[in-house]
């Protein structure tokens, strides 16, 4: 077993364990913090898979900004320990059964697909660096990039409109 594989399996264990704990913990704040661990582990995977720029975007945007938004809303609503009424009977066992079926089907699809070699491919120098990603982003994908900026603007306006207090009705 090469050192690369040892790093991979260690990180995979961290990612899967944090995902399981995120689903299982009853306090929403703990869930959010476990998700931060999971997203950071994913960022390290991106580094290992020759995507350093995306790894830093992941840490900044996902593990930073988005998770701060989550924690802010959890604390704003005081939703960390709300008591929920019991749901459907048998909901968890059925869900686990369906999840198991999904992973079996996914595994079958992966195994029957075109397999790739045991070795990673040979990459050009500086693959995935900011310069190369930027060149592709601003040349081949310029229009989607601009559309994304409009999408972010619409989302910002939508969030403001949705959370605005209703204006008082005129008497």
């Amino acid at each position, binding site marked *: 077993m*090469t050192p*690369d*594989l040892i790093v991979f399996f260690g990180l*995979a264990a961290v*990612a*899967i364990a944090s*995902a399981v704990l*995120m*689903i299982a913990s009853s306090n*929403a704040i703990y*869930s959010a913090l476990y*998700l931060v661990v*999971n997203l950071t582990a994913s960022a390290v995977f*991106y580094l*290992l*898979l*020759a*995507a350093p*720029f*995306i790894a830093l*975007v992941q840490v900044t*945007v*996902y593990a930073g*900004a*988005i998770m701060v938004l*989550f924690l802010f*809303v959890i604390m704003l*609503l005081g*939703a960390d320990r*709300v008591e*929920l*009424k019991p*749901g459907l009977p048998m909901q968890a066992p*059925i*869900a686990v059964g*369906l*999840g198991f079926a*999904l*992973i079996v089907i*996914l595994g079958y699809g992966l195994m029957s697909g075109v397999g*790739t070699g*045991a070795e*990673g*491919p040979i990459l050009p120098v500086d*693959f*995935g660096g900011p310069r*190369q*990603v930027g060149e592709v*982003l601003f040349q*081949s*994908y310029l229009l*989607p*990039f601009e559309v*994304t900026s409009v999408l972010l603007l*619409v*989302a*910002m306006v*939508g969030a403001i409109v*949705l*959370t605005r207090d209703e204006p008082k009705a005129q008497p």
Partner: protein
Amino acid sequence: MNIPTMHVIGLSAVLFTLGVLGVLVRRNAIVVFMSVELMLNAANLAFIAFAREGPNLGGQVFVFFVIAVAAAEVAVGLALIVAIFRTKRSIDIDLVSQLRG
């Protein structure tokens, strides 16, 4: 680094399934939302692995767009959850069974 692509795709499948489980099992709307983020992240991992397998930088650029769209989705989704909490005083997702406020 010399990690086989199939290993990464398998891990991505496991993480995606865990996200599906979270959506199916939990009824706290915020945790359901975090499970959706987990699924998006699993898809991103597969994109990055295939971008390296290509090698084709288009996959990495697509992950960039997915992260941007996820940010927009989180902003709107959390605003919706806040609005639901204002009317229902709860974020139990079972209570959100009708569109009428």
